[in-house]
């Protein structure tokens, strides 16, 4: 190549280290600073969503004791809770946060391929969050259409926020997609083109594979959300009728006619289902690395793990209508989508088996990241199994819109990825700050959270089988068994405890920054490149004067004949570090 851009360059003199506070920490083009900016913003807005969920739980658990919210507020809370958690917290945190931090470090690059674009990506994301927050303060408040924003009710009078709130929501989503696209193009191009010498695709840590594949899914799935957001914005502001049929609403008939609400559902779920895997695949990848590192054992079946990630990514585009079994669909389509849905269980189960087999006869260190990783295996199997129930048309129809669905997706794409986020925070915090997090507080945080989520979501399955519908403000006149209200109360108390336990994490994050023990460069004795940087935390440009060279795969733990129980990826073959086959096909 005629020229070599910054991310791939050996010469350190070409790197200009930013000096002033503003260029170093605010308008920074350094992927590590951008990652922290993404992470802090995502967690901040995520706390808003957490508080909203607790307010809803107080209403459901103690319907007459508190008058915190009116029925319309309940819908608004449920909508904003869902949208913030899925898009603005999990997607942004996994891809903008961990993706930004880990991809260049794990691939051995100095930065993303286009750092300026990467910086713009964060600021546009912040704008999306600001527009989202503005939605809380416009006349009528935020939209109360449910996080799926189904028309016609999303833009019809009578739904909270049908005039201003929904427009803020849609515009914010549009801005988010622009931000994601700018970041996502960077992540994909960096992984494909800017790895260091020796870092072949099949030597990349699974974290990178998961984030990489999820980003591709995002680049192909968010377009459908963008298009449906544009169409619905036009429906609600200009008066077009893309999704709006002729109807009578609250005694008068709006001017819309001839639109197709089902079209929105198809577009939304063509985005919405891959979105599940946009959140899940980075979690799959990261948890693989946590398990392998803390079990001192190579990941079982590395090559199969990579192909499973890719297979899940492809399949996730052909299952979307399993969210629409009750929307009215040709039974043959139901058959098709149920079949593809159940086929996804094959690569997913393969991954679960491989995680368990990685632990098999490993030298398991029950560190805090490991606890969260093992906790993830439990919650994910649990949520995955209920997914098999809901993937079948005949089982799904009676369970639709009940608490069974709420329990399922919270276990599988709420709790499971969040446990991985926590594990990843405890795992990489020493690299980001140079300090260890407090171990006791970490364990406390884990046990309350892990046991607490079971106390919250297990009873919800039972409520769902009893037929308790979701998205209801109160069940006062419905004749449910006494156990329903008692369980709702128990769930609420558990949710309050789990919510409060997250303060332990926040306290630990701040406390350890000042009082944490110095971690050294590689406290977990891990093999991947981010632990081999010359400085901790890594400086601008990551690698000092020379880029690393990779000689082996990411999982050389407990290699027979080696002097240590791990061999970093950049250690050349030698007497104390035997060459291995490069990936796990030999085991």
């Amino acid at each position, binding site marked *: *190549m*005629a*020229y070599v*851009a910054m991310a791939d360059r050996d010469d350190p003199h070409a790197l200009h280290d930013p000096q002033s506070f503003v260029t170093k920490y605010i308008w920074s083009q350094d992927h590590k600073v951008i990652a922290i900016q993404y992470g802090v913003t995502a967690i901040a807005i995520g706390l808003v969503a957490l508080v909203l969920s607790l307010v809803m739980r107080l209403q459901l658990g103690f319907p007459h004791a508190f008058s915190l919210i009116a029925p319309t507020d309940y819908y608004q809370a449920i909508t904003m809770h869902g949208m913030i958690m899925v898009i603005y917290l999990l997607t942004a945190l996994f891809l903008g946060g961990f993706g930004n931090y880990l991809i260049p470090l794990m691939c051995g690059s100095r930065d993303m*391929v*286009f750092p300026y674009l990467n910086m713009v990506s964060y600021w546009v994301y912040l704008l999306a969050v600001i527009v989202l927050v503005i939605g809380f303060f416009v006349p009528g408040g935020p939209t109360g259409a449910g996080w799926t924003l189904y028309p016609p009710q999303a833009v019809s009078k009578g739904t909270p926020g049908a005039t201003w709130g929904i427009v803020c929501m849609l515009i914010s989503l549009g801005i988010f997609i622009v931000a994601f*696209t700018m970041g996502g*193009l*960077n992540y*994909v*191009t960096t992984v*494909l*083109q*800017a*790895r*260091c*010498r*020796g*870092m*072949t*695709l*099949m030597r990349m840590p699974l974290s990178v594979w998961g984030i990489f594949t999820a980003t591709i899914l995002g*680049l*192909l*799935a*968010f*377009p*459908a959300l*963008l*298009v*449906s957001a*544009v*169409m619905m914005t*036009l429906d609600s502001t*200009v*008066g*077009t*009728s*893309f999704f709006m049929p002729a109807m009578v609403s609250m005694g008068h008939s709006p*001017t*819309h*006619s*001839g*639109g*197709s609400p089902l*079209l929105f559902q*198809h*577009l939304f779920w*063509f985005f919405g289902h891959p979105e599940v895997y946009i959140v899940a695949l980075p979690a799959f990848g990261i948890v693989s690395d946590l398990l392998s590192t803390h079990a001192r054992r190579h990941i079982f079946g590395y090559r199969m793990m990579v192909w499973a990630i890719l297979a899940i990514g492809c399949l996730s585009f052909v299952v979307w209508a399993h969210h629409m079994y009750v929307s009215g669909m040709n039974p043959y389509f139901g058959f098709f989508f149920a079949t593809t849905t159940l086929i996804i269980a094959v690569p997913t189960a393969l991954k679960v088996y491989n995680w368990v087999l990685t632990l098999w006869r490993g030298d398991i260190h029950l560190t805090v990241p490991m606890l969260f990783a093992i906790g993830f295996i439990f919650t994910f199997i649990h949520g995955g199994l209920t997914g098999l129930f809901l993937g079948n048309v005949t089982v799904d129809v009676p369970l639709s819109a009940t608490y069974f669905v709420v329990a399922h997706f919270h276990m599988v794409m709420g709790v499971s990825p969040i446990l991985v986020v926590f594990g990843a925070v405890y795992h990489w915090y020493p690299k980001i700050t140079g300090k260890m997090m407090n171990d006791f507080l970490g364990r406390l945080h884990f046990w309350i959270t892990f046991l607490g989520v079971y106390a919250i979501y297990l009873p919800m399955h039972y409520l769902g089988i009893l037929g308790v519908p979701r998205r209801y403000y109160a069940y006062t006149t419905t004749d449910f068994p006494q156990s329903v209200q008692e369980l709702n109360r128990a769930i609420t108390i558990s949710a309050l405890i789990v919510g409060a336990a997250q303060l332990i994490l926040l306290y630990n994050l701040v406390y350890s920054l000042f009082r944490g023990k110095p971690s050294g460069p590689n406290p977990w004795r891990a093999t991947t490149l981010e632990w081999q940087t010359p400085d901790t935390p890594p400086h601008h440009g990551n690698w000092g004067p020379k880029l690393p*060279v*990779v*000689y*082996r795969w990411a999982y050389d733990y407990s290699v027979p004949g080696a002097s240590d129980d791990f061999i970093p990826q950049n250690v050349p*073959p030698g007497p104390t570090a035997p*060459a*291995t*086959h*490069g990936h796990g096909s030999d085991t």
Partner: protein
Amino acid sequence: MATDVMTAQAPAEGLHGVATDFAADKQAFPVPWGKVMMWIFLLSDTFIFSCFLTGYMNVRISTTAKWANPSAVFSLAIGQTEVPLLLIAIMTMVLITSSGTMAMAVNFGYRRNRSVTTALMLVTAGLGACFVGMQAFEWSKLILIEGVRPWGSALGPPQFGAVFFMVTGFHGLHVSAGVVYLCVVAMRVWNGFYDRKGTYETVEVVGLYWHFVDLVWVFIFALFYLW
């Protein structure tokens, strides 16, 4: 790829070998980063336009009212004769021609011919601006004379105006953005930026975008004006 960092990899056959070969290079594609990024962006953009066009087909099929007759709506009077699709034929010609001048600009860029590359890029931008101008004329004719509105029209169901303005508008925005992009890069070609950088690949990256916008127009043309 240097062999010193590749240890103990047995040669693989068949599909496995293809995957290994693809994975084993330092770069997955032997092209500059900007070009890879543009290809991925265009793939994403393809999904946007696919969703728009699928949505259009869906509303057109599912609406109960009779769709507007494109030959009648998009005709232009020359003297006393109504010529169907005349304006759109000219617009399509202009845009396809601009793809030709763009391809020539890429060619002259790789020959390091600064002035001809600049000129051809400006011609391409000019043709693009001309296309957008004609689109503005077409829109104003529809709005002011035919009375088509996004929320309804006498010519067909309300979705006709809505989807037409939305999709052609979105494409028009792409063309307008492309004109700006072309002008910026043309200016950099002219002031010797790419000579100093040592490569004219950015001209080709702009070209990719421009050809994509043209290709999308072919689909819009076929689905809106010929269906």
